[in-house]
């Protein structure tokens, strides 16, 4: 019998116990996978293109729109390559489903966000059709929108001049991301700001955000200071930050959820350590005479330690990997059913963390029993002392 075979045989000697322990490890890592993915949504701050874009908003809050008259002043700043702007539309689809819809300048949008692409003809159609709208591939697929359709979209903020909040737009293009990450984020709807500005009964010549595309990302700090200084002490004071910081701050608004997720993870892990650790200890306790026999036969202290430790590692590794795999499956299912809105499936980083957790756990639960096995004195063990 090989050494590996010996370890496996030992694991299956008490089949019920091994299977039950394995199942608790699987459950723990299933939960670990799902929660850690939620956690990484909250802490990663989505890395997009890094610091090459700045977001300028009203200092008091981005819900207070800024006047478009700022545009030429922003464009004149050295180091600013292109400026786009966007206005929150408060889109509502059918029975009260909120839609992320923004009124933008079409061609500026194209230039400022090069990571989202669409055939040039569609960009031109977007720019030249007053009532045009474009949609991300994810959301278009979700609702079955096709280019050429008239899409009814209500706004929960802006009435048209006739008082009606029911708007309709011509879908002239569907954009998509150029990378794996941006493809997932192609979920927004954009409409033509010129038309919105003219047709709505509420705001005139304003936008919630100016998006500044920089020639050189290293200048981000300096340029944001320049912008904010430019409008200081005016009614429209600004706050300019990198896109990354903006996203991070936005996610943080949801509050202490990341903290709570960490608490849960901690509770699960602590519980699990005890369960598995105890099982391992018990299985070593029961086999003390056997281990003594092994030593009598000439196996070294180190070999006996390795046997016991290998069992713990095998158990944790099997359970942990199955659990992470299940989490990936479950996450993918949630992602598919929600049309890409909830991205729960553990990515590469979560898997890495998971494997690290498996190894740490094996050490913690395997080490004590293994050391005990190594320290055994043959005479005492055989005598049952």
């Amino acid at each position, binding site marked *: 019998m090989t050494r590996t075979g010996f370890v496996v045989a030992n694991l299956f000697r008490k089949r019920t116990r091994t299977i039950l322990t394995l*199942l*608790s490890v699987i459950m723990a890592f299933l939960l670990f996978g799902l929660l850690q993915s939620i956690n990484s949504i909250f802490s990663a701050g989505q890395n997009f293109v890094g610091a090459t874009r700045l977001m300028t908003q009203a200092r*008091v809050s981005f819900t207070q729109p800024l006047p478009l008259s700022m545009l030429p002043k922003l464009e004149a700043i050295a180091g600013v390559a292109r400026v786009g702007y966007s206005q929150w539309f408060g889109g509502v689809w059918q029975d009260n489903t909120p839609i992320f819809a923004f009124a933008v300048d079409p061609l500026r949008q194209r230039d400022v966000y090069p990571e989202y692409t669409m055939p040039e003809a569609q960009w031109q159609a977007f720019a030249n059709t007053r009532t045009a709208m474009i949609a991300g591939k994810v959301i278009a697929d979700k609702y079955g929108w096709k280019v050429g359709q008239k899409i009814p979209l209500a706004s*929960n*903020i802006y009435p048209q001049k006739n008082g009606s909040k029911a708007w309709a737009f011509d879908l002239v293009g569907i954009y998509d991301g150029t990378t794996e990450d941006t493809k997932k984020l192609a979920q927004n709807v954009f409409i033509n700001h010129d038309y919105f500005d003219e047709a709505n009964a509420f705001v005139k010549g304003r936008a919630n955000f100016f998006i500044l595309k920089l020639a050189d990302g290293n200048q981000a700090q300096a340029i944001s200071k320049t912008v904010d200084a430019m409008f200081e002490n005016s009614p429209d*004071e600004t706050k300019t930050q990198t896109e990354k910081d903006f996203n991070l701050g936005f996610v943080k608004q949801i509050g*202490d959820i990341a903290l709570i997720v960490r608490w849960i993870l901690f509770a699960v892990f602590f519980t699990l350590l005890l*369960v598995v650790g105890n099982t391992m200890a018990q299985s070593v306790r029961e086999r003390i005479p056997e281990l003594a026999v092994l030593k009598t036969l000439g196996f070294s202290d180190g070999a006996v330690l390795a046997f016991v430790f290998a069992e713990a590692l095998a158990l944790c590794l099997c359970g942990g990997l199955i659990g992470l795999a299940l989490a990936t499956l479950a996450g993918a299912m949630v992602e598919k059913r929600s049309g890409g809105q909830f991205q729960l499936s553990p990515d590469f980083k979560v898997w890495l963390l998971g494997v690290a957790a498996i190894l740490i756990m094996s050490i913690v639960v395997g080490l004590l029993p293994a050391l005990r096995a190594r320290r055994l004195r043959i005479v005492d063990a055989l005598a049952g002392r």
Partner: protein
Amino acid sequence: MFTQALAITGINIKSIPERWATSLVIVIGLAGVVAVFTALLAMANGFSSTLRATGRQDAVIIMRGGSDAELNSGLDREQTDLLKQLPGIRLGADGKPESSAEMMVIAELIRKDDTKNGANITVRGVDPAAFTLRPNLKIVAGRNFTPGLRELIVGAGVLRQFQGAEIGKVVRMRGSDWTVVGAFESGDAHDSELWTDINVARTTFGRSGSSSILAALDGAGGLDQLKAGVAADPRLNVDVVREQDYFNGQTKQFRATIGFLAGIVTLIMGLGAVFAALNSMYAAVAARGKEIATLRAIGFGGTPVLLSVMAEALLLALVGGILGALIAYVLFNNVSVSTLGQNFTQVVFNFKVTPQLVVRGLVIAVLIGMIGGFLPALRAARLPVTTSLREN
């Protein structure tokens, strides 16, 4: 039979200290499940009870049609003045309709544990009637704002969670300085707000109307009368909702999200705990094989043995459950947190560990104990007496 069961259970329980390691697994496993379950639901509870406490049945909030939230709503000056005077609104002591035009804007404050990222805080411009309409709101420090001046009063929740709005501090909005002159407490969602005079807010933010109207209803027929008045006037396209219903509606999504999370986490962790409990109880039965066989040999029945093992599992589960609830209570009860509400602003609330929640947690613990105890108990009852006695 029951005396037998009781006798064996007594022996079992007395022998727990000798097997404390395995027993501890059940206790800790369940403490974990119950603590997580209770903590998550205590958060959902705290959020809803804060919003539910806001608003009365005998007052309505009027917003532009289809707005859903005050932030999205806007009424112009004409509509505002019309709405404040509509029949169906109760008259106050001064003979004027008891209604307050309110304008909601958002300012950013920085969380206490943060240094740069701002969080959205509601700034509410109000008419003087706003204070009569919310009798539970009390100024607890400093003084009220003076109409016409750029002064703010700050809610207790904002003071707890955010920096830069303490009494005496200056908040900068739209190129102007606002002094915080007092603090108020209302025990509901308004604690997460800053208040000021609506007219000052109008000039500063360049708006003339309001976001919403809050009005007291004139008796039981008031609502119908008010709705009829609104419907009869073509200039008014608005929604009239009872204030309490409006705030109640805002809790739905948060509760659904947290409820979903709590459900999944509890289910997975609960399954883990069931497996752990099964393991421990099997081990306990195996360790006492000889003892159980002896009992059977001297005449104890199979059922009492089964019952006694179940009783042990249940007791351990219950202890674990109580421990878990206690942990959740000590760590989380009344912990103040905040999250984004419907108006896209922060709602500050406290975790609430209620007796009901604790009972639900304990029920889950007992259920897990029952499932985890049953199969091992069955094995104990069916243990072949002769072979067990012969084992060493």
